[in-house]
């Protein structure tokens, strides 16, 4: 049974990850490699990629940490509101962020016109700004949870000992965050450098490696050069992976347990910072709404449904159904698969469990842009090619590691003695899983489902190679509409994706607050009573 299971996992990872990636490496010849690397485009793109990604990483890390600190360590009012706003950019594709900047600061942008601005957003400046928008919510959420899990008692001691506030941050908070800062830095750098959505739209003449790869592989179907670039783009992700392994996350505590005694304050600086940040995040989203429903943004602002109807006629509704199908299938299959592997790797012992764990965190190292190219080459002549199935499959593998780690984290908190009790009482393992484990992890299951769904809904990286011939996901229409200068439709599609993801989040929150669903949780977690 166990052997059969392991064989199945091995086959899935071979077909879903190793074989497609392998085909990339197989395609690379020394000549081909030299040709790509020695081209004048390459060295410029390499420099542009590294410099913009580095600056954007530093800025988004600073802003994300500051925002998380404001929400976790001050008495700021409206924390829930800010948390929703700060997380919202994660619900739309990266390409929408640069599109939003274009709508605001572009040649015909709203703010450009109103303020008679003379900034050139197309280029390195735009890439950095768009990448910051793209990476900020991820950094914010990472630091939010890490700050929440810090042990609060040293702060209590520092307070009693009269250590000034700023020194507490420097001497306690920063050392605690050091590991997280290091591993997040590499992860975010890799995320930005492999994204092509932002630089494609706003890069102008500033070419990056990811756009070069996109142009070669998607536009020109030059898979040989594409493979070389894809493999080069795996390098930062590999560094991030190693940094992550060398920097295990800090031990989990509950800061709030002690914090009530620690003097917290909220200054107007904190408020101004959070409000400004919110405005910056909401501005492009609001502009999308205006563009979608105004007759001719920014000239004629009269309300109309004309653009919505036109966008639907251009196939947005069909593609929305495609995306929804892909997202639901990826979420269902991905959640089940990552639960099974997380259960196996936490509840079993020995080499098999370690191998399963290593396999499960491996997809983290593979940028979607590389995985997608591998899929195109490997699956080209197979029946699954050109179906929704392959899009769902590439999403499951691409986004597998994070939900797997969420479940692993939850399962590790459940005593292994639960299964031991089951064994002694003669309760078969499947009943312990059904009656004890699954009810305990249901909130994590919801989170995992949402992660797969939202990412499948907004991703443009791996899927860009596979569609067409496969049915097109909605997010890819933004690229298409932008290329056709159909700005209103691109805005409408961004809004549609945002609303779909928001709707899913709301539905899951409703589900979690259902009586049956929350009965035990409410009683075991008195701090956060859920509304009936």
């Amino acid at each position: 049974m166990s052997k059969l299971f392991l064989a199945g996992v091995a086959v899935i990872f071979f077909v879903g990850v190793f074989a497609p990636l392998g085909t990339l490496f197989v395609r690379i010849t020394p000549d081909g490699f030299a040709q790509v690397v020695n081209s004048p485009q390459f060295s410029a793109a390499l420099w542009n990629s590294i410099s913009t990604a580095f600056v954007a990483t530093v800025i988004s890390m600073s802003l994300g940490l500051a925002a998380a600190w404001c929400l976790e360590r001050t008495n700021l009012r409206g924390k829930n509101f800010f948390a929703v706003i700060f997380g919202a950019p994660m619900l739309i594709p990266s390409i929408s962020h640069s599109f939003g900047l274009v709508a605001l600061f572009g040649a015909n942008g709203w703010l450009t016109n109103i303020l008679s601005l003379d900034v050139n957003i197309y280029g390195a400046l735009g890439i950095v700004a768009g990448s910051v928008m793209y990476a900020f919510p991820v950094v914010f959420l990472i630091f939010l949870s890490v700050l929440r899990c810090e042990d609060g008692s040293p702060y209590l001691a520092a307070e009693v000992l009269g250590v000034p506030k700023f020194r507490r941050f420097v001497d306690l908070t920063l050392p605690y965050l050091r590991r997280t800062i290091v591993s997040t830095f590499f992860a975010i750098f890799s995320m930005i450098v492999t994204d092509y959505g932002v630089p494609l739209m706003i890069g102008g003449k500033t070419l990056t490696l990811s756009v070069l790869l996109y142009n070669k592989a998607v536009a020109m179907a030059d898979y040989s050069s594409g493979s070389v670039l894809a493999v080069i783009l795996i390098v930062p992700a590999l560094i991030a992976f190693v940094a992550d392994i060398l920097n295990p996350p800090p031990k989990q505590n509950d800061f709030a347990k002690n914090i009530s005694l620690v003097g917290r304050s909220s200054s107007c600086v904190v408020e101004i910072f959070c409000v400004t940040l919110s405005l910056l995040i909401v501005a492009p989203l609001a502009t999308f709404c205006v563009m979608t429903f105004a007759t001719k943004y920014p000239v004629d602002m009269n309300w109309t449904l004309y653009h919505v109807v036109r966008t639907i006629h251009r196939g947005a509704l069909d593609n929305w159904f495609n995306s929804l199908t892909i997202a639901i299938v990826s979420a269902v299959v991905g959640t089940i698969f990552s639960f099974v592997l997380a259960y196996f790797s936490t509840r079993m012992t020995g080499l098999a469990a370690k191998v399963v764990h290593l396999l499960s965190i491996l997809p983290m190292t593979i940028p979607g842009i590389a995985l997608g190219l591998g899929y195109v080459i490997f699956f080209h002549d197979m029946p699954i090619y050109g179906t929704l199935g392959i899009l769902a499959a590439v999403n499951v593998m691409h986004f597998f590691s994070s939900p797997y780690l969420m479940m692993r984290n939850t399962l590790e908190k459940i005593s292994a003695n639960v299964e031991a009790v089951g064994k002694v009482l003669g309760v078969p393992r499947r009943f312990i899983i059904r009656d004890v484990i699954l009810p305990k992890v249901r909130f994590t299951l919801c989170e995992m489902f949402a992660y797969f769904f939202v990412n499948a809904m907004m991703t443009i990286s791996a899927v860009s190679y596979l569609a067409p011939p496969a049915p097109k996901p909605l997010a890819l229409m933004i690229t298409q509409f932008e290329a056709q200068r159909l700005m209103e439709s691109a805005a409408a599609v961004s809004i549609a994706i945002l609303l779909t993801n928001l709707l899913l989040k709301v539905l899951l929150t409703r589900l979690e607050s259902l009586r049956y669903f929350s009965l035990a949780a409410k009683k075991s977690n008195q701090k956060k009573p859920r509304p009936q």
Partner: protein
Amino acid sequence: MDFQLKLVAREISKAYDKNLVLRRVNFDVRDGEFFSILGSSGCGKTTLLQILIGLLDADDGKIFKDGRDITTLDPARRGMGIVFQNYALFDNMTVFRNVAYALQFHDVDEVTARQKSARMLEIVGLSEFASKMPAELSGGQQQRVAIARALALEPDVILFDEPLSALDASTRLDIRRELKKIQRTLGTTMIYVTHDQEEAFALSDRVMILNRGVVSQIGTPEEIISSPANDYVQSFVVDNLQTKIDSLRRFLT
């Protein structure tokens, strides 16, 4: 022989990665006896307990229960129960369902299961908490639920793995008294793992002292106190131990 032997362990050995944690351990537990396994952390006492109940396989040695070889028997078919230090309750189920849950897997009809569970809750003094969730109970109450859950299948041997370590002093006293009561009324044999010598000596009919996987001494508390077998055993026999045990024992009756 004067006593009927309930459980016999012969030449039990166990190694983790060449690191020997149990070395040819031999002991007998009498029927209805309260038998403690005492040792400092890392002495192999928890490993021994897991081997006795079948959660872990010994590398060597045999276990007999009522004269029958149970060395390779499935844990659920050994007629033994176990109570862990961290309770390991099913915390999405009510107290009552925690106790009743396993009965459905043992050909017990529903009416009998309900009666049995109610009785077990009565024995541990939690009848009025039947419909509560575990998270609503104190640590001591939760451990009582775990005890009732173990009792529900009517095992004739119950193993305890440091069951009171996470509880405060007065709750410990209460539960010790209840354990002794259960031992007397149900005649259950109890094997009790602890690192607390006062607890072991006050509760037990006999104590086995384990040092780095080797049995140092087995005997009644009085035998051990009056003639400790070696320095390790001597280290447990601290000043005034007899006085402390006597005062603890007064609470147990």
